[in-house]
């Protein structure tokens, strides 16, 4: 993973130091802000092996986090989950992605792993019920917070206490441009400049409660391969504006507010 990820340098160093010291970190921020990408960059910097556990898919928590049974030669056999395997594997950075979408059962499984006990009781296993977390394994988690995220839930206070919490804000337009220039090239950064203007405008308007959602970092980055082939107007209408409310019964909707701005920067000329 590239080290070009743009974030406050001090914040990143603090997180690295804490993780090295055995602390777990929770990175909060809006969707598409780059939380997961940032976790990968942390693993890269710490020279650890990242393993992503998607907590949003842990509705059957025991199966997802602990394992499942298979039938072999007429007998059932317990198969450890990726998560269970990972916590026993040295030098692993476990990324608990979308922790705010995990179920209560998942929380209960994760609790003892994250506190001083660093072990987990697995009744399904035939041999020995306790699995110890390898001493070199570390944890980071990501979570969406805020009223935008109706599918998420507030994270249990006890679980929050097991993390040091850091907020990862959306990148500014300038940071985005710097990132794209480093990851791609200056021509691409220049070509995508109108999208960065729109990105910045949606964030301003969202902060002032004038529109109900904003363009994510991920959405802009996803458009990068399109800028060489399609016009900015085509990208706007087909990709960007699809992410905003377009109530056709009214002229005043989020999409038209953004179109108005897009016109002012020449996209519809």
């Amino acid at each position, binding site marked *: 993973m590239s080290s070009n990820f743009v974030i406050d340098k001090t914040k990143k160093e603090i997180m690295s130091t804490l993780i090295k010291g055995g602390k777990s970190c929770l990175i909060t921020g809006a969707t598409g802000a780059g939380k997961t990408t940032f976790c990968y960059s942390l693993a890269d910097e710490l020279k650890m092996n990242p393993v992503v556990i998607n907590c949003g898919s842990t509705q059957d928590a025991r199966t997802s986090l602990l394992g499942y049974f298979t039938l072999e030669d007429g007998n059932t056999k317990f198969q450890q989950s990726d998560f269970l395997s990972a916590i026993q594997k040295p030098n692993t950075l476990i990324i608990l992605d979308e922790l705010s979408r995990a179920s209560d059962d998942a929380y209960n499984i994760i609790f003892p792993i994250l506190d001083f006990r660093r072990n987990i009781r697995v009744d399904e296993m035939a041999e020995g019920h306790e699995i110890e977390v390898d001493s070199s394994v570390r944890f980071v988690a990501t979570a969406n917070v805020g009223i935008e995220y109706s599918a998420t839930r507030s994270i249990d206070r006890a679980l929050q206490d097991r993390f040091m919490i850091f907020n990862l804000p959306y990148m500014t337009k300038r940071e985005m441009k710097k990132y794209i220039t480093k990851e791609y090239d200056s021509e691409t950064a220049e070509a995508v400049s109108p999208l960065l203007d729109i990105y910045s405008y949606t964030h301003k308007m969202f902060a002032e409660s004038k529109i109900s959602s904003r363009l994510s970092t991920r959405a802009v980055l996803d458009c990068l391969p399109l800028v060489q082939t399609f016009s900015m107007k085509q990208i706007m209408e087909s990709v960007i504006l699809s992410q905003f409310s377009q109530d056709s019964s009214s*002229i005043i909707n989020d999409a038209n507010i953004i179109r108005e701005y897009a016109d002012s920067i020449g996209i519809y000329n």
Partner: protein
Amino acid sequence: MKETFFTPSEDTVIDAELMETWLGGSKIHSLNPKTLYDIQLLLSHYKDIIVPMTDVKVEYPTEGFDTACASVDKGIIYIPTYTLNEGKIDDTIGLVIHELNHIKMSEKESVLVKISGGFVMKILDSIFIKRDDGKYDSIKETLFANGFNFQNIIDGKASNKSEQFFSECLKGVMMLLNAVEDVRIDHLCAPNVKKYIDKLDVNGSKNFIPHYEQGELDENKLMNIVFRLLYHHKGFIKDDYIDNQFGELPFILKSAPKEYIPIVFGAFQSEIEEYCKSLFDNNNFNPTDDASTMDSFIQQISESSAEESFDKSLGEEKQYCSDNFSDDMFEESEFDKTLVEEVETTYSAEVENGTKLLVVPRSMKASIDIFNNVDVVDCHENFNGSEVTAYKTLLIG
């Protein structure tokens, strides 16, 4: 404000060609109250585009405002609803952008009034009125002898005929200055939204040009100059007089109002003098509450015109020329006594404590205005052998 609702007729022609290019394929087919409200709300967001770091209100008064205008002091723009009601949606966008550009680029009205007031007073000091005893007083002296207080002008509370007369003079001058400012800010408008300004100009010029070409605005009166200056510098006409007097568009574009105001006064001093003198001679310094000088002018032109469209055109020009100058524009401003004193002492030869009045010829004063290289020298003369007379004279450096 009293709530009134106007529903455009079904026959109203909707002109939203530019807006519809970005409206996501939608067409505005009718202007029912909800659509009108939604459009107003949508257009209000131009403030987030043009002046994003400024707290600006966009208001759409249904009454009380004949013209679009902006108060830079208060951070409010007023867009009367009649242009939308007439179906002129692109023109309304043009007005919103134009007024927001005033907020972005123009000087506060309170500052403009202080500066312009000083210059107007200077001009009034060069117009002399014969008294009953055969001697002459300048209009300025006459005003001060009749209870004139500049603070009341700044406060927008002209309380006597002198102050009302001065307000009328100032209004005319402010219209001229606003025309210059309109030229400046419209030229400097962000290129991607300038198309709305250009459309508004084209629509206005269609009605103005025929009357200009028929010579109806040939006379070098202040109000004619306002329109001619506007359309000359916007490229719709080639007016030799404007070109000679104030033809440097690059100068307008690179100058702040504080820089070009003295030049405008110098260029059109004779028209301003004539305008003020005409107001004085006609005893026209008791304005009614709702009839501005501009309104009178428009009424004159309208009555002489057979084309209704030209009335409307001038109505639109009125939006341009009277914005930045509303009746409440002086509210909350402070009287800068120092500035007024400075202007008075710099631009006029004063009578002080028994010294004789030294009348400065207009030609010399014009030079003083423009080149500002004159020293005021105190002189003492023994004219009749018995009494020493002190006076001031001017030396051009």
